[in-house]
């Protein structure tokens, strides 16, 4: 893997009025967040976190339920000195703009929701092939097709299995609160740069549009970061090219191996998850994202009724925290996978457990939001069916 280092932007010369405007906008921006916590939608929080992570370029196309993010970037990134915002003509164009920006070494991102993410898959595959970092946000909604605009988790497979053509994966995060959306936006940029692999945040319409207090843990960098391996013209060095096509399959095999080794490193060093009340649990619910929030409500009520139920929540969806889940099977036999789809993450749950536990499933697809009361009934029934006490 090529080492990633940063070099700072050469300061561009500016006319006096431009410099004054830049200063004012910087001041305005600093004043906006004088308190530790602000109330924001998830979509806006991602935008703010991205700006603070030194994201220089945002390219997007309107689609519900992620428009607040595009709009946030239009208001807050587009006229920032050195930064760019484009409302692209399509999601295909937007991801290819990310590709172009990323190739120059800057931090760039796009966001969309399920149907738009399908259109981005070609570009994501090319980014993976060229080992280009970048952030793709999917505020997913019910599918297939145009589907519904309600929150759903139906893109888990697409997100965690690469999504486009070719043998590749992206680094995928499954946040479950507005705070986590902000934190993981920062982490996604960092990991994406570190491993030269595109990163994805898999949220949903509810997370994107709900408001919660959020604290931003980073200040925007004084100068925008630029990767040293960016293509910025062959000044003082031989010309270079970035390409995916080769007439030599052996070369492509080597690229696939190189990517694969990085996925292994990610699995070893970068996975994260949350264990909630799992220590004495007889039954462990596995859920990610907003479904995990609903599950927590049900689990709290189950606990109040004396049922020993816990939650395993993967935060990195790819790589999946396999060891961390397998570990739980030492003390717990029964698992209940809960998703807002017909059962996708359950594949990873079973693969991780390697038969070490029994896995049941409950899911609601299409954008239907299950309630915690409904899920509590599922927990309770399973708990007593299995004779747990």
């Amino acid at each position, binding site marked *: 893997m090529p080492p990633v280092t940063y070099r700072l932007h050469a300061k561009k010369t500016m006319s006096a009025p431009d410099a004054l405007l830049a200063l004012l906008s910087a001041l305005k921006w600093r004043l906006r967040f004088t308190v530790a916590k602000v109330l924001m939608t998830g979509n806006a929080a991602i935008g703010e976190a991205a700006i603070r992570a030194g994201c*220089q*370029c945002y*390219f997007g196309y309107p689609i519900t339920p992620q428009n607040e993010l595009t709009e946030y970037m239009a208001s807050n990134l587009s006229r920032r000195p050195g930064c*760019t915002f*484009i409302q*692209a*003509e*399509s999601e*295909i*164009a*937007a991801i*290819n*703009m*990310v*590709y*172009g*920006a*990323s*190739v*120059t070494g*800057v931090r*760039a991102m796009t966001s969309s929701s399920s149907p738009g993410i399908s259109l981005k898959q*070609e*570009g994501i595959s*090319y980014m993976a092939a*060229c080992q280009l970092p970048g952030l793709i946000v999917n505020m997913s909604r019910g599918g297939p097709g145009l589907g519904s605009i309600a929150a759903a988790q139906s893109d888990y497979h697409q997100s965690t299995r690469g999504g486009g053509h070719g043998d590749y994966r992206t680094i995928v995060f499954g946040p479950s609160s507005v705070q986590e959306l902000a934190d993981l936006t920062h982490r996604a940029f960092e990991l994406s740069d570190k491993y030269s692999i595109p990163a994805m945040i898999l949220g949903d319409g509810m997370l994107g549009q709900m408001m919660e207090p959020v604290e931003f843990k980073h200040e925007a960098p004084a100068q925008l970061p630029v990767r040293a391996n960016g*293509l*910025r*013209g*062959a*000044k*003082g060095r031989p*010309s*270079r*090219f*970035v*390409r*995916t*096509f080769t007439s030599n399959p052996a070369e492509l095999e080597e690229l696939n191996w190189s990517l694969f080794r990085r996925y292994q490193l990610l699995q070893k060093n970068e996975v994260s998850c949350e264990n909630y009340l799992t220590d004495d649990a007889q039954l462990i619910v596995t859920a990610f994202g907003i479904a995990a929030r609903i599950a927590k409500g049900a689990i709290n009520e189950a606990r109040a009724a004396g049922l020993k139920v816990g939650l395993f929540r993967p935060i990195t969806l790819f790589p999946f925290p396999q060891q961390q889940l397998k570990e739980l099977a030492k003390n717990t036999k029964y698992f209940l996978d809960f998703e807002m789809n017909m059962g996708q993450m359950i594949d990873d749950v079973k693969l991780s457990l390697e038969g070490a536990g029994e896995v049941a499933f409950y899911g609601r697809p299409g954008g239907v939001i299950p309630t915690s009361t409904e899920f509590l009934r599922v927990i309770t029934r399973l708990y007593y069916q299995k004779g747990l006490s």
Partner: protein
Amino acid sequence: MEKIFSRPKSLKKAVFHYCPGCGHSIIHRLCCEVIDELGIQDRTIGVPPPGCSVFAYYYFDVDMVESAHGRGAAVATGIKRALPESIVFTYQGDGDLSAIGTTETIHTANRGENITAIFINNAVYGMTGGQMAPTTMLGMKTTTSPFGREGKYEGYPIKMSEILGQVQGTCYIERVAVNSPANIRKAKKAIKKAFQCQLDGLGYSLVEILSPCPTNWKMSAIQSVKWVDEVMSKEFPLGVIKDTTGKKDVN
């Protein structure tokens, strides 16, 4: 003895893989001569496409990044926006620019992105084996229009340059050909002017180049240069389509 002709500095010392009589190699050379003359080799970033010119980065001695089929304009947009001081050009075939990449091209032009497009019209999909392109002549037989292209059935030769001429963000569009020494000289002037437009920050510039593809036209090299004159340039007339620069040429 004085050396009066040599390989441009921006052209790598490599053997072209193009078929004999192909226009791509001439156009590569012209672009490199222009890059040299404008002194922009060390800040130029090229975006070659899938197509016969997919290996352009083996020949151009400038930074290059391959784009997905048709997405060159969007990729170039990303590069230019991230790095405004660079000189960015796309190199695109007629399948690439006027079929799969029509949307990206029109909207990049409409935003007036300050980039240059080198658009190679050879009336076919060269790389994939001579299928019909949107630019294929009426009556022309290709592997996917085996009965000859019929307007009512296969559609009509599309005039992307004329369409782009209507788009407000474009500053300079010219159609040239590389089928004779005189035309090659004109082509070079047009390419230079297009790059100059970018240096002057005027917006989207494009040079469409009628380029022989003897292999897929199933002609000899000589027949194909004649065909450009006798058939192709009747459908795609050579000349300036749009010029907002107010300058005649930059030589």
